[in-house]
């Protein structure tokens, strides 16, 4: 018996015309991107090291968004600490120099609109040149408004952008790893809390616990905000933890801006057997930028030039 051939990564069917966008050279110089060397991924890294990575991720989110002139600020800034732990705290197993390595753990950003934080994290991990961040949302950029697998960007495992879908794809990957390939890979997924209103989230939760996917770890970005307002004003999602418990998940409720709590949560998740884990991370949208923090109106807005200057100043070491 043989294996059917398949071609998965990288896929490069998405280019609409030959020209790729180029980053503004003045900004590349200003941000000193040329001399940047990637952060390391190790469980030995100190919380301070990871916090510094998170700060740099946030700076890059601001830089890419102000240049893009459209896109989502709030969610990406709020989840930066979690992303820093995933990629630089030794949680996820990957090799940025060999991005499609079979043995890599998988990461799926189910809330695809948070793409800027994923791109910034990948750049800071060395999956791409940092200057490419300045092509966000431009024609033919590998950095699409929502992650597009068709652009072949290393580290993008799947297209997302329609809420509620990424988690199901991630569960499918976890199923393949645990019950088919039995390869020990783990699958990490991040969803928004407004995203929990989509029924596919609960279908997938039921599916993942039925199949005992203990290699599957979902983190909910619990910022209590969505586009039209705070969750309870749009559609109440609480009690969030009870829901996940009732759907068979092991749950961990943490402060999503505490590097140590995030690290411990992912450590704990890795030890849970026969159950998938859901980490509910309390965050603030737009954190820690003073004029964005906990304000839903920053869900889908980029900073303008002045706001970017202020934000970057607040993020200076």
């Amino acid at each position: 018996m043989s294996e059917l051939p398949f071609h998965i990564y990288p896929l490069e069917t998405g280019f609409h015309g030959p020209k790729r966008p180029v980053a503004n050279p003045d900004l590349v110089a200003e941000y000193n991107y040329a001399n940047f060397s990637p952060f390391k991924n190790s469980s030995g890294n100190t919380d301070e090291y990871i916090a510094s990575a998170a700060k740099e991720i946030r700076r890059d989110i601001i830089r890419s968004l102000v240049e893009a002139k459209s896109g989502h600020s709030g969610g990406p800034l709020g989840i930066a600490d979690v992303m820093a732990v995933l990629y630089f705290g030794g949680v996820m197993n990957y090799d940025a120099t060999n991005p499609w390595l079979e043995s890599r753990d998988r990461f799926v950003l189910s809330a695809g609109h948070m793409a800027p934080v994923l791109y910034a994290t990948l750049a800071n991990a060395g999956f791409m040149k940092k200057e490419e961040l300045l092509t966000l949302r431009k024609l033919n950029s590998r950095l699409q408004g929502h992650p597009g697998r068709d652009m072949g960007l290393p580290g993008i495992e799947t297209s997302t952008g329609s809420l509620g879908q990424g988690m199901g794809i991630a569960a499918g990957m976890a199923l393949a790893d645990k019950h088919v390939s039995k390869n020990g890979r783990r699958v990490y997924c991040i969803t928004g809390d407004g995203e929990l209103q989509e029924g596919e989230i609960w279908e997938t939760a039921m599916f993942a616990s039925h199949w005992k996917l203990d290699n599957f770890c979902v983190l909910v970005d619990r910022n209590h905000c969505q586009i039209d307002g705070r969750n309870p004003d749009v559609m109440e999602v609480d009690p969030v933890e009870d829901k996940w418990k009732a759907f068979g998940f092991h749950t961990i409720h943490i402060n999503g801006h505490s590097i140590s709590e995030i690290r411990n949560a992912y450590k704990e998740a890795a030890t849970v057997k026969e159950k998938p884990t859901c980490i509910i991370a309390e965050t603030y949208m737009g954190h820690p930028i003073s004029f964005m923090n906990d304000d839903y109106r920053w869900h889908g807005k980029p900073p303008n030039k002045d706001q970017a200057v202020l934000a970057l100043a607040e993020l200076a070491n």
Partner: protein
Amino acid sequence: MTKFELLGKKATRFGFGEGLVTLGERYENVIVLGGDITGSVMTSYFQEKFPDRFFSTGIMEATATLVATGLALSGKVPFFASYGAFAACRNTDMLRISVCYNDANVKIGGGHAGISVGPDGATHQVLEEIAITRTLPNMTLIVPCDFAEAKKATIAMGEFIGPAYIRFGRTDTPMFTKDDTPFEIGKARVFREGNDVAICACGPMVWEALVAAEKLAEEGIQARVINVSTIKPLDNETILAAARECGAVVSAEEHQITAGLGGAIAELLVKNNPVPMEFVGVNDKFGGSGDPDELMALFGLTSVTIIESVKKVIARKN
């Protein structure tokens, strides 16, 4: 016939939003369901004026469609609006069985139509929902050409009884129809006379067709421009008359050419009067990020492509 002039630019979604307000003022049983992008599909206008008749559903397009069905079966006239990618695709089974098979008086607004959405990229640029909604029995499908028509169409679909879907865009596009430009569900309008070729367009492509026609006139080609703002039911009479009198047709839509407006016209033509036809639309591809104008040019959704297609189809006239 008076020539259409450019009156400025405004997205069709604003016409939808204003139309809802007019309906709300006129009729107490008009209800609006919001899907957490109310400020983007402009149901926020209705929400501000009629908070008691606005209900937030959060992000659950399938259930919002079902809730709308229940409202309709209770004598209300519910509108649910989201981006077309979710208002026609996330809830297709609901549209088919609960809305259309029930023949429930549900009105769906589908925004972010086409690649003119711009930087958000392919996931949000819906190019398939004309095909999806027009294949459903009992469904009425409207694609207004500009702001003013979007407003009229929204009011008309509310006053009309039966399932209906309206498609509108995010980006500001030319305004060229006026308050007194007639609109009627099921009626396609000739916006420019001509007998060398008929350009049947919908949405913002109608303006592109008018621009193309002007340029073609300079070369002595008189194009008839038809605004097919109702795609289902199709105005067979007007389109067949054009086919008969012009002998060639070009369709133009911000949608896959597969099974869209062009497909509807092709079905009509071969069944009644097979004349050469060319299709302007997206050629079986997904969109991508970029700014709207760049994308429209890159995907060939401009007067330039229409002109090329017109010349191609005229050359094919035996």
